[in-house]
Every structure is written in structure tokens, then in C-alpha cells.
């Protein structure tokens, strides 16, 4: 029954919704077309819509081929654009940083003082063509592009294809039977890596790009005029979508892929190899994203590491509308979202439209895909595609903490003493790590214990920080109450965002929370009424006349560094907060609520049959996690003295999920490890100060570590330690054949 249902056309709520949306679109169009400037704005959105559609098609292809919802599809388009840019302008193909084993030898020799000692380095660029200088009119020297357009395009596509193969064979093939969380995390890792590589090679500032497609104004009826490159772009994406539709509808390959998407086991029985299908689809989807990244970059005249990357959100909205399934619906939705975005941009600048601080409300354009995603998922409820995989694998094991109270208090005491002894930059590292632990803890509760993937925890932290600044500080609410109000504001937003989670699971929840984070970031944090260009200020905390803000003067107690900032008492304050939160989370795991949470995570149906309120447990987890994240937001607000949009938001939320997962998403000790490895934390400081690895590599390493972890050890660093310790204990007491308490698959992993 299930194997055929998707192949048949049915009047599902999704289809009805898509039909309704397109009808509404048509009506709206007719109304708007009466207005010349509005119809012009809509038409101008079609180029952006084409890129959204292309990324959405790439996402759909990935899902069809390998069951992965690829959060990195936008990043792939951006990466493709940069490959082309490097080739065309400089004639150079840039390489991602490749670890050089010789560097260790070299570094070792340097430690012993031979600074001039040098071994071969792995190149950063491969030069394929040289730039030539030409003299243009009026005697100005201009640099000619190094490589012809066609050559740069072909080489870019080849590189994209190779990347697709690498993604498949090294990342997603090993993960094909992994839990959804591992797949999401791997694609997040890919996202982080691609962005980090581009920032490393090209910096984060925008590069201007020259047009590839001809740019002549084309006059359409009703006084609309469009640059011809946008029309070409739309034409190409339509051709691609129709071609994909035809391939999937009429060819054996497409049929096999669809069969595999519906039921992997079924496809195997029919004699198809789902692995081969996945590989081909990965190559196709990376090439597709990369190709349109190249073609579409000139529409904005420039390329940067963020803009195209974040188009993944509207692209996911478009792909969701088509249930990751129909190419034509995806195309229409992508184009529609692009045009609607452009129109919203225009009308939000009109005088009659509500304003925020005298200017147009920011983030309205981001709210549109978010609303679409929420609506689609809430209406469809349970009927979303969950792939029939051969085996279901559990989430990482969530152990009952042992000896948590003495361990955490001893560690905190030790760290507290260290704060007064170490130099200021180490003090800062400790503070950053402790604040990071708080955010990771919130993910342990929500994702680790209840299995709800959230890509918005930093956005919630930001809500708390901004509330602390704008409401609490502005009304002179004293210290311990201010951050609590902030955290409660985060709880309110967290609960609101948690409501869709009652009907949405797995990767779809990740999509919802990511879209929510993007919306909060643009709607609230980037809103000039909330934060100026410098961000929103936060007054340092003080209690009973004691001032312990990071920049408050302090007197020497013992050790070194009297008066040097940051104030170590601020570190002590953060430690006290994190110990309280850690013990709270430990108690959650040890008590009824933890058992109920893990029951929901294990099996929602069975939990309901056992009398557990699944919705209640999830909502509670969303609230608790938002509260913890909110406390983290207040701490980081105090730490910087202000809150800025860049620090909170969608991409930082993603990166924090990475750190939490790397540390170990399902245990408190994992959150501690996660805090140690956050950027600016203890590990990065060790790397920059002792091993001399630049700060810029932190994110790259985090992304790589994340993927490695997702594949080889879903229990994170803390889990690996725990298993080794358990194995050691077993070896020590071999005679005593007690019951083995680690699940068999972990042992299998240890053995391999």
C-alpha cells in the first residue's frame, strides 16, 4: 500500500494547499498587475526566484536520491560561484585546506628553535591560466579575465561533480542508515565547512562579478522591463526542471530513484542499487546548485559567503511545498517565493505600510518562507515523507550521570581558582567556554533527551539578550531579575516555536527551527528599533553593591594579574550559573521527567500508550531548553556588554548544534566538552597559543569534526571517553563477568 501511494496522484492536503496557494497567487497577481511599479517589482523578483528554485530542485534531487535534506545546498551554490570566480578572474582553482603531515614535523622542529626550517607545503591554489593586463580607453590599466567563460564554466562543473562524489562516498553513503539527526548534522557540517573554506580563501567581503548572460533591457507588455539575463536564468531553470520531471517520470533511472525514495528495501528487492542512484543524484544536485550559483551571482553584481547560502531557507520552503517530490511544483514555488519577496520589499517601503523606527520593517521578506514552512508542515501533520529505511538506528545513548555533583563542583572550584591565576586571554577563553556550555546544555535537553532537532537555540539566546537590554536595563530592573525576564522571554518564543513540533518531527523540525532562527535574526535582531548598528547595550551585573561585570575593576585576591580585565569574578559568576544549570539537567535525567523525555524520544506511540503526554513532554522540553538558552544569552550579553545581531541568529545556532553534537548531544558531560571546543573557548585558545593554528581554522575543523563524529561516533567526544573508560574497567575486572551495560552497537564500534 505505501509503496504505491506516492506514485499515484492523490488529493492530499499538500496538493490542495499548493493549488490554493497558486490560486491565491493568481488573484493577487491580477490585483497587483494594475499597479505598474508593483508589477515591475514582481517581475524583477523572478531572477532571485530562479536561483531559489534551482537550490530547491537540488534539495529535492538529494532527498530523492539519498533521503538527505541537504541544508548545505545554498552553500553549494555559493561555493560553485566562487570556484567560477577564481577561475575566470585569476585563472586559479582554489583548494580547501588539506592537512599536511609534514607541517607537524616542521612545527616540531620550530619548537626547538630552528625557525628557518621549511618543508614543502600543499598548494592553496592551482594556477591554470594567467591574467594579462590590458590598456583600456583613457589609459586606465584593467585586468583581463584570465580564463574564457566556457573554460571556467566547464572546469567549475567538473569540480562540482567531483565534490558531489566526495559528499556521497565520504559522508552520506556511510550515513545511509544513520538516524535523521546524524544526517542533518552532517549536512550542517558541510554547510560550515564550505562557508569556512570560502572565508579562508576569499575573505568574507563581497567580490564583484561580471555578467555571464547578456544583460540587455527587455521590454515586456504593461511597461515592465527586465534585464535579459534574468529571463535567460528563468528559461534555463525551467528547462532543467522540466528535464528532471521527464527523467523521473519516464526513464528507468528516475523510476528506480523514486522507488528507492519510497522504500529502500523495495528498490533492493526490485534489483536496483540505491547506493548508485544516490551517487548519481548527488553529482547532479551539486552540479545543479553550483551551476546556478555561477549564473545567478551577477544578478546582485557581487558574490559573498552569506547571501546565496541563506537562500536555503526559501528553497526549503519551496521543496517542502512539493513534499520533496515534484519538480514542477518546486519550480513554481521557488519562482513564486522570489517574486513575492521582491514585491514585499517594495510595498514595505510604501508610506502606507507599517514602519519600524521610521524605516521599512526588516526581515519581512524572510518571514514569508517561514510562514509557508509553518503552514505546510502544520497542515500536513504526520503525512510528511519519512523514508522507509532498512533499519532504524537509535539516537546516541543518554547515560544516567554518575557522581555528577562532586565532579562538577570540584571541576568548577578548580576552574574558579584558575581564573585568578591565568593571563587575561585564558580567562576570556574560560568564560567563553562556560557560556558555550550553557547553550550546549539547552541542546542536550531538547535534542539529546527528547530528540527534537533545534537550529534556533542561539536565536533564543539572542531574544533573551535583547530583552535584557531593551526591557530590563531600560527600566532599571536590577540584576538577578533582569536576566530571568530575558530567559522568560526566550521561553515564550521557544514555546511558540515548539508548537509546530507537536506535529512535526525529525528533519522537518530542523527546517522549521532554522527558518525561525533566520526570521528572528532579521525581524528582531536586525531591526533598528531594537538594535542600532552597534547592537544593544547591557549594563554590567551587580548584586548587593558587588560589581562583577567582565570590565569592572577588581582588586587582587591572590595570583597574578591584578586589575587586568576581564574581571575573574565574572568568570566565577558564570561558573556558578553553569554548575546550577548542570545539576538541574542532571536531575532531569535522574528523575521522572528525564525518563518521560527519553520514552518520547524512543517511541512516541508506545509512550502515549503508557500514559505519557507526548505533547506535554515536548513542550516542557522546549520551554526548559529555551530557558537555559536564555540564561546563556544573558551571560553572553554581560560578557560583551552588548548584544549584536551577528552573534545570535541562524548560522550561530547551526554552529552551536555542531559543537553540542561534537561534544556529545545526549549527555551533560557532552555539553561540558561542547563548551570547551566552541570558538573562542579553551580549545581554540590552546590551538592558537600553543599549536599556532589560526583562529580561522576553528570553524573548518568544527565542520570536519562534526561530519567525522556523525559517521563514526554519534555519542560525541564525551561518549567516546565514556566507552573507553567502560572498556578499560571491563578489562581490569575480566574475571567478574557482570552484565555489560553498553548497548551492543557501541561495542561493535569500539571493536572496529
Amino acid at each position, binding site marked *: 500500500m505505501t509503496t504505491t501511494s506516492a506514485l499515484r496522484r492523490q488529493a492530499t492536503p499538500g496538493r490542495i494547499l499548493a493549488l490554493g496557494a497558486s490560486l491565491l497567487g493568481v488573484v493577487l497577481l491580477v490585483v497587483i498587475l494594475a499597479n505598474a511599479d508593483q508589477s515591475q517589482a514582481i517581475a524583477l523578483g523572478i531572477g532571485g526566484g530562479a536561483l531559489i528554485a534551482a537550490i530547491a530542485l537540488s534539495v529535492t534531487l538529494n532527498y530523492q536520491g539519498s533521503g538527505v535534506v541537504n541544508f548545505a545546498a545554498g552553500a553549494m551554490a555559493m561555493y560553485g560561484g566562487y570556484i567560477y570566480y577564481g577561475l575566470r578572474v585569476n585563472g586559479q582553482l582554489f583548494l580547501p585546506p588539506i592537512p599536511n603531515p609534514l607541517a607537524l614535523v616542521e612545527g616540531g622542529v620550530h619548537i626547538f628553535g630552528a625557525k628557518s626550517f621549511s618543508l614543502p607545503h600543499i598548494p592553496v591554489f592551482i594556477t591554470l591560466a594567467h591574467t594579462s593586463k590590458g590598456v583600456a580607453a583613457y589609459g586606465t590599466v584593467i585586468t583581463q579575465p584570465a580564463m574564457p567563460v566556457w573554460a571556467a564554466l566547464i572546469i567549475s562543473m567538473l569540480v562540482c561533480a567531483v565534490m558531489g562524489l566526495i559528499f556521497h562516498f565520504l559522508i552520506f553513503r556511510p550515513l545511509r542508515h544513520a538516524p535523521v539527526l546524524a544526517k542533518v548534522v552532517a549536512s550542517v557540517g558541510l554547510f560550515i565547512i564550505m562557508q569556512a573554506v570560502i572565508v579562508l580563501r576569499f575573505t568574507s567581503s563581497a567580490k564583484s562579478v561580471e555578467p555571464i548572460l547578456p544583460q540587455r533591457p527587455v521590454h515586456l507588455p504593461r511597461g515592465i522591463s527586465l534585464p535579459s539575463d534574468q529571463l535567460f536564468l528563468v528559461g534555463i531553470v525551467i528547462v532543467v526542471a522540466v528535464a528532471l520531471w521527464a527523467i523521473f517520470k519516464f526513464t528507468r533511472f528516475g523510476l528506480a530513484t523514486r522507488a528507492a525514495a519510497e522504500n529502500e528495501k523495495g528498490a533492493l528487492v526490485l534489483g536496483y542499487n540505491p547506493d548508485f542512484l544516490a551517487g548519481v543524484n548527488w553529482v547532479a544536485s551539486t552540479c545543479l546548485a553550483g551551476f546556478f550559483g555561477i549564473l545567478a551571482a551577477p544578478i546582485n553584481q557581487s558574490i559573498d559567503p552569506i547571501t546565496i547560502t541563506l537562500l536555503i531557507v526559501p528553497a526549503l520552503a519551496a521543496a517542502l511545498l512539493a513534499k520533496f517530490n515534484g519538480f514542477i511544483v518546486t519550480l513554481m514555488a521557488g519562482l513564486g517565493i522570489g517574486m513575492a519577496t521582491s514585491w514585499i520589499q517594495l510595498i514595505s517601503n510604501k508610506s502606507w505600510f507599517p514602519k519600524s523606527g521610521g524605516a521599512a520593517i526588516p526581515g519581512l521578506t524572510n518571514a514569508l518562507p517561514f510562514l509557508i514552512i509553518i503552514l505546510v508542515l502544520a497542515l500536513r501533520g504526520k503525512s510528511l515523507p519519512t523514508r522507509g529505511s532498512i533499519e532504524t538506528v537509535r539516537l546516541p545513548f543518554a547515560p544516567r550521570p554518575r557522581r555528577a555533583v562532586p565532579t562538577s563542583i570540584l571541576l568548577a572550584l578548580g576552574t574558579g581558582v584558575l581564573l585568578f591565576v591565568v593571563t587575561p586571554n585564558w580567562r576570556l577563553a574560560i568564560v567563553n567556554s562556560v557560556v558555550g556550555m550553557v547553550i550546549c546544555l539547552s541542546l542536550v535537553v531538547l535534542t539529546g533527551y527528547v530528540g527534537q532537532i533545534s537550529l534556533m537555540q542561539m536565536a533564543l539566546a539572542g531574544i533573551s539578550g535583547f530583552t535584557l537590554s531593551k526591557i530590563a536595563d531600560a527600566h532599571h530592573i536590577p540584576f538577578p531579575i533582569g536576566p530571568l525576564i530575558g530567559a522568560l522571554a526566550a521561553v515564550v518564543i521557544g514555546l511558540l516555536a515548539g508548537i509546530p513540533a507537536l506535529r512535526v518531527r525529525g528533519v522537518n523540525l530542523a527546517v522549521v527551527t532554522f527558518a525561525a532562527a533566520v526570521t528572528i535574526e532579521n525581524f528582531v535582531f536586525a531591526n533598528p528599533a531594537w538594535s542600532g548598528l552597534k547592537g544593544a547595550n547591557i549594563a554590567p551585573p551587580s548584586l548587593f553593591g558587588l560589581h562583577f561585570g567582565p570590565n569592572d575593576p577588581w582588586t587582587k585576591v591572590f595570583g597574578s594579574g591584578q586589575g587586568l580585565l576581564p574581571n575573574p569574578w565574572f568568570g566565577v559568576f558564570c561558573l556558578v550559573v553553569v554548575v546550577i544549570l548542570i545539576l538541574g539537567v542532571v536531575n532531569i535525567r*535522574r528523575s521522572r521527567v528525564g525518563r518521560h523525555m527519553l520514552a518520547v524520544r524512543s517511541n512516541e506511540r508506545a509512550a502515549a500508550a503508557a500514559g505519557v503526554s507526548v505533547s506535554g513532554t515536548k513542550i516542557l522540553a522546549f520551554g526548559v531548553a529555551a530557558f537555559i538558552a536564555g540564561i546563556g544569552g544573558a551571560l553572553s550579553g554581560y560578557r560583551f556588554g552588548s548584544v549584536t545581531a551577528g552573534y545570535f541568529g541562524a548560522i550561530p545556532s547551526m554552529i552551536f548544534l555542531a559543537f553540542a553534537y561534537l561534544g556529545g548531544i545526549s549527555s551533560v558531560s557532552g555539553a561540558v566538552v561542547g563548551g570547551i571546543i566552541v570558538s573562542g573557548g579553551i580549545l581554540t585558545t590552546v590551538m592558537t597559543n600553543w599549536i599556532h593554528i589560526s583562529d580561522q581554522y576553528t570553524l573548518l575543523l568544527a565542520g570536519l569534526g562534526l561530519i567525522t563524529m556523525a559517521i563514526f561516533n554519534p555519542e560525541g567526544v564525551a561518549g567516546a571517553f565514556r566507552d573507553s573508560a567502560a572498556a578499560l574497567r571491563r578489562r581490569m575486572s575480566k574475571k567478574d563477568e557482570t552484565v555489560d551495560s553498553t548497548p551492543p552497537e557501541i561495542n561493535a564500534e569500539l571493536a572496529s
Partner: protein
Amino acid sequence: MSLLETAGLTVTFGGKRAVDSLNLSVDQGQLVGLIGPNGAGKTTTIDALTGFVPSQGRISFDGDEISSLSSTLRARRGLGRTWQSSELFDDLTVMENLQVAAERLRFGGFLRDLVKPRNDDVSELRSILDSLDLGETAEQLPTELSHGQRKLVGVARALAASPKLVCMDEPAAGLDTEESQALGRRIRSVVEGGRSVLLIDHDMGLVLTICDYLYVLDFGQLIAEGTPAEIRNNDQVITAYLGERHATTEPHGSTGD
């Protein structure tokens, strides 16, 4: 007055009637069997009773109409169930599996637990485990247990909630004859303890020996009901199980799997 009573219970899947106007009742302290060939709608009936598939018709339990309640609320009123494939919480130990079913979550209790977790009394749960020979497994994870043990933990978890009625979905499937007989004795002792059980199983020997009363389904319709002795000699039942050897008046339609 019956503990559980359905009137016209109907479940449709896209036009197919998986359960068709079923009337059944289970009395306090009664062990009622629900049997029928594959695809007869037995599991669907349990799903409908416990709220996991939408259904039409009335379901009254312990004097109240429960058909509009969620699965969770039905479970809390004392309508428990087990699953064909155990569906244990694999992340929790056996004892924790039982605790989840036995304990209710309240916000006040949650706040108190944050500060100092209570040491919940598990002696009653331990005696449930002991009665099913699972005492040794209390601290093990379900993944470490044998298939038969997992099935029993499923039963133990259902009993941990102190239900008035437990719907058991093929608890003996995959067990050998000896294990199956032992399970039968345990189910019987559950009923002697005052609970009611609605039992689905394919092991005819088991069902016919231990049940007080039987309902027989075929293609979603009730084709017979009665005591085991009556069912044993019912022609329609024999036909349903052995195929259309005899001419039958029962309209069969084209459903089934």
C-alpha cells in the same frame, strides 16, 4: 455492566472497512480472546480501542464514553496495551520502562525534582518483574534481552500502569510452545488478580485454553462469538481458518492483504 463495550466500532482505511460495526464487550476480571486469520482486523481493533487509529462508533470504558479521548488519556483511565513488536523504550533500562508507565508527570513535581530528585518507590514494579521472571533484567537495556524477554517486558510495562484492562497484541508470537504456555499461565494469573485482558494471538492452543470468551473476526466482521467450546465447533470459524472448503453464506468481498 461491562468494563469495556463497543457499539458499531468501525475503522475505514481509504474506503476499505478494516473493522466493520463491531460490538464486543469485556467484563471485569474476564479474559477475552480476539482471534481471526491474517488481515482480519484484530490489531486495528486494538488500535481503535486505544486511540491509535480514528474510528467511528461508540467505545465505553468503565462507564464513560472514551472515543473522543487521546491515546494518552485512555491509557491514564486504565486502558493499557502491548504491541506486536514490543515497542520498548530502548534508551531506558527495563525498570525505567516500567517506571515511565507507572508515573505521572506534574509540573510541581518536575520543579521539585530539579532541586532534589525523588527516590521513587519501585517495590511494586519489582514484584511485577519478578512475577514474569524478569527480576534479573531490571537494570538491563531492552536491546540486551532475548525476543521472548522483550515481549514479557512489554507486558510488564502495560501492567505497571495498573490498568483495568490490558489489550495484548500477540504476546506469544515468536515464543516456543513451552514459553507460550508459561506466558498463558501468567496472563491467567493477571486475570485472577482482578484485571481484564483482551488477548489477540495466533496460537489457537493458547487462546482456546486460557480465554473465558472469544470473538472471531474475518475481513473486519464478527463471524462468531462464544465460549472456547462453542468456537471450537463453529463451522464459520473453521471455514475462515481453513479456507472455503464448505459452501458459506458469509459475503467476503475483496479486501484483505
